[in-house]
């Protein structure tokens, strides 16, 4: 069985996995980090988004072995102790979630957007969220949250 090593939220981790193990399975099942969700079978919902070397990817469509040596950031890695990441806090303040299932992916995707485009317009946020589906909110407050989060992050 291949051994895979990577840095997850700043911590070096490794594990023996089958080659077919998805990155999201490695996170959830091997590392017991269940913050990253799986919402579909078709690579379309974005609930599984994590940052891989700074860019958001769908961890359900990347093999764990492909992340060998990579730096991964999951939703668990954002807060600083009890202090939420500004984007997490913006989701909370703006009611950017209802059931919360899509939220980890939304927050990660939003952080990737802001890293590339510090002051996204509403249209740019909506376009960027193409790969993140929410079945509850109707997106309105998610878009608001992301713009507020971008501002709080210094944009």
């Amino acid at each position: 069985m291949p051994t895979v090593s990577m840095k997850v939220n700043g911590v070096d981790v490794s594990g023996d996995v089958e080659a077919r193990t998805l990155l999201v399975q490695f996170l959830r099942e091997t590392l017991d980090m269940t913050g990253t969700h799986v919402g579909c079978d078709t690579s379309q919902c974005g609930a599984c988004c994590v940052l891989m070397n700074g860019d958001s990817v769908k961890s359900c469509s990347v093999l764990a072995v492909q992340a060998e040596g990579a730096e991964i950031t999951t939703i668990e890695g954002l807060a600083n102790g009890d202090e939420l990441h500004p984007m997490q806090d913006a989701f909370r303040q703006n009611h950017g979630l209802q059931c919360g299932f899509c939220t980890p992916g939304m927050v990660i995707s939003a952080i990737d957007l802001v890293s590339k485009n510090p002051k996204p317009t509403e249209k740019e946020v909506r376009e960027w969220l193409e790969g993140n589906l929410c079945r509850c909110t109707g997106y309105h407050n998610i878009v608001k949250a992301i713009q507020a989060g971008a501002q709080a992050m210094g944009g």
Partner: protein
Amino acid sequence: MYDFEYHRAASLDDAAGKLKSADDGTLVAGGMTLIPTLKLRLASPSDLIDISGLAELSGIKAEGDAVVVGAATIHAAVAASSDVRAKIPALADLAELIGDAQVRNRGTLGGSIANNDPTADYPAALLALGATIRTDHREIAADDYFEGLFETALDAGEIITQVAFPVPEKASYQKFPNPASRYALVGVFVAKGPSGVRVAVTGAGLDGVFRVTEMETALAENFSPDAIKDVSVSADGLNADIHAGADYRAHLIGVLARRAVADCT
């Protein structure tokens, strides 16, 4: 997903060697097509040879009158490239319209054209711009490359290394995305360049990407939306599914082609 042996290629030669020695090996680049396919158990390769991130296959450079894009270059890099933006803005626009941000962060040009999905975007750009596909063995003109649904001129074990896109005088890509998948319901790439005026259509054809020569002739004479307003595209040979009938797709080809001509820069 069935299990397989995974190998990360150290170089192009290494990838070719591993592909040859595997029982039933497959390349993986971005995995945005292959991994969903494996998850559905629609394929069961013995070995996966990973070429993503191979320096030899990545990157974008201007080369004479062409922009050359490495096969393992991700869509996001093409969309963000200042060379592509400056020389072939329509190509950067196209890359930016593929799927979603996360797909663009992994999916590659080589993977897209090796797969030749009839609703993929890049095939339209390659055909309209008269691009050349470079492999580890030879060069193939786009006109000879796309051979039908998921079929290409690639031989077994052949690896795409680069695509050379001649810089056009002007070009535009107009896409009517499927509202659910974001693949092209119909996409039309119009280019006026070294190989004349070309109109290439993706998403609509039962056999994949194709050119509309009647429009090309009319536009060669008079490059304006008006010149093609009376050219009707036949619904024969066009795809019909729950998203759109063949006649609707035929209509969209006309509309998008006129928009593309009007938008050409």
